[in-house]
């Protein structure tokens, strides 16, 4: 059952994405697994570690300067998903380079570094500095440009909706990253996500990640006001699956650009649906928060050994 006839890939085998060989196709999504586990050792009865079989951990998005994020509450469960307005809390790019990335390398965690910035120049500068500082690292496989986080006031939201801006950001980063995979993470809150994907690919992205969260809102019935102080948050989790599948299908079938799928994946079956549509890899987000072994179990269930 977990290996239907049409399914021939081993997602725990190495595969090439752009200039880089990744150790597998089951990844964790940015913001849902921090910089990998920090401070915790984790065990389970059935999987050796939360990293077993994973192709990459996409790190929490880092920005040029540290950010403390949005006011609380910034994470709300809804019956079928979650709304977050974390606001890109992160240690900042320099601390990330100095402390986080070396530690990921030391622990042997395959890493994709998620970056956000407010203009193409900043993206370029971060990419250049990454290449300069982290060039020799073996576990750093690529960069994902977060062009779509709906929680940042300064431009973040509409930023990634314009294909030209997407292209500029990708081009700026690409020029400094000759030997790493470059991914553009797209917002689904547009009429034409395929257009964004095409723009990203033409500017040099090796793949696009789709999707980031949908704009959502939850009301506190006691007050009649939105629960999140900024009203809107990013909707993620199981409710998203059919929406994310549609966006991925739109990109794959209209553009042929390689897609790393994300949105609502919690089980091997969910992941299979993205692969069925032609996704080259998948990311586990919200479900990884519920259980740090989710992605590793998906890798085990779908792997040839599974």
């Amino acid at each position, binding site marked *: 059952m977990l290996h239907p006839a049409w399914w021939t890939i081993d997602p725990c085998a190495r595969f090439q994405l752009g200039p880089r060989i990744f150790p597998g196709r089951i990844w964790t999504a940015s913001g849902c697994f921090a910089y990998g586990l920090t401070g915790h050792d984790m065990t389970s009865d059935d999987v050796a570690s939360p990293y077993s079989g994973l192709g990459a951990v996409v790190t929490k998005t880092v920005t040029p300067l540290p950010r403390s994020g949005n006011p609380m509450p910034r*994470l709300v469960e809804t019956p079928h998903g979650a709304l977050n307005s974390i606001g890109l809390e992160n240690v900042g790019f320099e601390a990330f380079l100095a402390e986080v990335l070396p530690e990921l390398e030391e622990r042997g965690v395959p890493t994709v570094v998620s970056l956000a910035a407010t203009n193409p120049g900043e993206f370029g500068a971060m990419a250049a500095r990454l290449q300069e500082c982290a060039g020799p690292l073996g576990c750093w496989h690529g960069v994902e440009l977060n062009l779509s986080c709906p929680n940042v006031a300064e431009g973040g939201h509409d930023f990634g909706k314009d294909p030209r801006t997407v292209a500029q950001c990708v081009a700026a980063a690409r020029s400094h990253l000759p030997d790493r995979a470059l991914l553009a993470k797209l917002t689904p809150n547009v009429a034409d996500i395929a257009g964004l994907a095409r723009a990203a690919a033409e500017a040099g992205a090796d793949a696009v990640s789709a999707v980031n969260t949908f704009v959502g809102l939850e009301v506190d019935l006691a007050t009649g006001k939105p629960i999140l102080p900024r009203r809107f948050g990013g909707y993620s989790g199981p409710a998203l699956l059919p929406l994310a599948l549609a966006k991925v299908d739109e990109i794959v079938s209209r553009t042929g650009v390689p897609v790393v799928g994300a949105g609502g994946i919690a089980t091997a079956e969910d992941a299979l649906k993205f692969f069925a549509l032609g996704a080259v890899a998948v990311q586990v987000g919200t479900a990884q928060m519920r259980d740090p072994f989710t992605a590793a179990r998906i890798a085990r269930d779908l792997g040839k050994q599974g």
Partner: protein
Amino acid sequence: MNTPDPLPGAYQGIGRVTANRPVSSGLIRMDLVLARPLDFSPGQFAMLNLAGPSGMVFSRPFSILAADGQDVSFLYRVVGRGTAAFADLGPGAPVSFLGPLGRPFPARTPGQRAVLLAGGVGLPPLHDWLARHGRPGDLACFGAREGHDVPWNLLDERWTVCVEDPDGLDGHPAVTGLVTAPVAGPELPRGRDRILLLSCGPRLLLRAAADLAAAQDWECWLSLEEHMGCGYGVCKGCVVQVRVPGIPGSGPGSRNATCCQEGPVFRAEDLIWT
């Protein structure tokens, strides 16, 4: 040793319900048996969820009441969707477990008397603290609204029960008043080397405990409740504001601390109440 222990390894697995029964009018005790023995310190918690696809999007944090080998117990109150679903579970039902998580209450330093203030479902960590570290002279107070709300079977004679309303005591001994009432008198000495105040419960209690401690210069640790996404430090959905030492030349600052990983137990003085 007042410095929190380093975080132990957390275990994720499926526990099975062995018992799930009311212990007072508002409190239910749930016992699980895990696939392996569990080691924890008082104040640590676990993230629980229904097993399988019917589970909630986020697991729910619950303080560990006790653990003995593979058996682990919780005390909870039905407040919403998740706890209502837990209350429906019968023996044998699978429960997704991740724990122990978070930093525990500290043990005492020599010379300190302990004052424990537990309100309602804030009992578990302090119950276990007293069981492990309790000494004659410690003052352990449990507060509830009225007699029927008190889990009498869990509370031995070392516990002073405080009820706001003396109804429903059915002959059980209790102080009428807030859980802070027994501490208010002048009997307790001042000074952080003399009293270690630990509290877990409603926010108002924690504020009152912090104020008491500040006024008396007691050492004080509080267990906070924040809504949690992951419970293990990755989502940044549970942050609280804590003070950081000022950079020389500028005043003291603040930063976010994750309640799940840097807490849930914080030193009262470090907290910035919002």
